[in-house]
């Protein structure tokens, strides 16, 4: 939903970043306003996953120049947990398996830390279980997964559901979903997409990172950005995704076709 006067949630300006001295992002500009759904598309290695990790504050990446502002405030010097508490959520492409740590406990500690930030009451074990059981329905997840270790032995689809469950619990202001559609069959994809759509509000925004069109059939983006070699080459509406599907990334990446990004 595009509203020109909606407030800016995320503002990325001329962002350059590297990992182990290897430059990956080479000047990314992106503005996301409340209520909007954006999609960043690109080939493997175009830098789109790096972008998502930098917004969340992954320590392996070094920002060499540029700015990332979240609700008007530069967040690049914030710890990852402080960003998460402030309302930045990253749905991982490969959710990490953490043997021995109970999923339920993990979800509760995370949820409570966000609730404290939002001036909401911390939930005790019982209240939290009520909340989590309600949210489970959203992603059609079996409560049995709460008893297991975080993501351990989960199938690809189950891991992604667990990500969206976390999103539902943390009520983020901006959700960045990194290849959330990868490895999902069509039914699971629909469940995830329905969850994302339900969680989208006029006060929050979503950034989908993907290289397939199919997720975008389910979650309709307001803007589509094409990324290549660490830059956003082109920005358009949802029809751009269809164009990519039909003609491939070449038609965007060839210099003659490039339009200025504004």
């Amino acid at each position: 939903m595009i509203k020109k006067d909606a407030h800016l949630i995320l503002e990325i300006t001329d962002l350059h970043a590297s990992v182990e001295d290897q430059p990956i992002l080479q000047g990314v500009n992106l503005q996301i306003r409340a209520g909007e759904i954006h999609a960043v598309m690109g080939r493997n290695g175009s830098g789109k996953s790096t972008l998502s990790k930098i917004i969340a504050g992954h320590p392996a990446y070094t920002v060499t120049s540029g700015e990332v502002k979240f609700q008007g405030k530069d967040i690049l010097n914030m710890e990852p947990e402080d960003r998460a508490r402030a309302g930045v959520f990253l749905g991982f492409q490969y959710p990490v398996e953490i043997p021995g740590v109970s999923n339920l406990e993990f979800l509760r500690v995370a949820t409570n830390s966000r609730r404290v930030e939002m001036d909401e009451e911390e939930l005790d074990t019982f209240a939290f279980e009520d909340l989590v059981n309600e949210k489970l329905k959203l992603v059609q997840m079996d409560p049995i997964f709460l008893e297991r270790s975080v993501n351990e032995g989960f199938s690809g689809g189950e891991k992604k559901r667990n990500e969206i469950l976390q999103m539902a619990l943390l009520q983020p202001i901006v959700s960045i979903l990194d290849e959330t559609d990868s490895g999902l069959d069509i039914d699971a994809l629909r469940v995830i997409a329905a969850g994302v759509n339900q969680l989208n509000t006029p006060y929050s925004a979503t950034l989908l990172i993907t290289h397939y069109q199919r997720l975008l059939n389910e979650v309709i983006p307001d803007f589509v950005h094409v990324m290549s070699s660490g830059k956003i080459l082109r920005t358009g509406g949802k029809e751009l995704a269809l164009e990519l599907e039909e003609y491939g990334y070449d038609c965007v990446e060839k210099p003659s076709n490039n339009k200025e990004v504004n």
Partner: protein
Amino acid sequence: MADYRQWLNSLPEPNGVLKNLQTQGRASLANLGMPTNTLEEWRLTDLNCLQKILNLPLYKPNRDYLDEEKQKEWAQRPKNGFRLVIDSQTNPLEDINLPNGIRPLTSAEVEKLLVQRSNQYSSSRNWQVAINNATATNFLALKIEGQNLPPLELIMQSDSGAFIPTRIALIVEDKTKLNLLQVALGAANSAQSHLVEIYLGKGAELNHGLIAFGIEEANMIANLFVEQKTSSHYSFTSVQHGWSLSRLESLIVQTNGHANTTLKGLQVSSKKQQIATHSRVKFEGPQGCLEQLQKSAATDNSHCIFNGSIQVPQLAQKTNAAQLSRNLLMSNRARIDTKPELEIIADDVRCTHGATISQLQEEEVFYMRSRGITTEQATSLLLKGYCKEILDNLPVESHRWEILDKLLKSVKR
């Protein structure tokens, strides 16, 4: 060395049912001498602690030390379970009605066992076995049979200022199912030497847990010997924590292959402690399975050691063995040594081992932080999880032991 001889000479005259073993053990000790760091298996051991063990007087028979204060640490007696308190010289079966299916070996059976065994698991090359043989005077030997047996709990509590050796043999008959929990508790300035032999019959299933918790100046050396017949399942979960020196040696033999072995170990060391596990699994027949996961976490100035050997001779075709040694090094004054070993002759086998030493996984910490959890909280959750992955394998009855919660609370970066 002079002290060592003196110590040997100070031992009481061989006596009791283990008389012959005592004589043999002492001869072995005289022959082997004190271990030195030039020997591969003693390369990393803190020999000062070992020496301290020998400076302690051998335990004298009375149970005064089992005062209420000590017993407070113990968990409630299991509801339908069965508890024995083991030490060197008092009879653990005194005033006890053994449940159906469990009986002591007759003296003829004991005799036979000792003769058969002494060759197989000999003191002549193993110092820890020799120490135990040389000193242990009491022998708890049980024959166990049945499918609906109550869980068996064995407590070894050490006495301050004393050295306690214990020796146990369990003959688990064909198709028997049993949960066994061994708890070794250290007292200040004490030492224990344990030797447990277990014979698993065909199709028998034993879930064996060892909780070994020491405190400062408490030392433990322990040996476990297990022989598995075909179709048996043996699962051993050990937790070692808090000893000045703890050294657990285990030898598991699948006599004809076709059996399952699961070994899970956790060692958590802090201060100046040294915690070590030396395990060896031998497949003497085809189609054996082993799954082994050994974890350690070392903080402060402590030292964790793991040496895990897997032997697959020619007749052990189609063995499937996987061993993993995962280690957390949490202080820059601590040290971890690990040495997973494979010795393979059979060609149609699947054997793997892996070892890692590191801090907590950065990706795991980041994942949690990206959900708003602080580094400290994440660390503590991860460490708890790290330990729980092993603790969850203990027989269920173990979880009555609150010391396990203490362990979880005590592991910190």
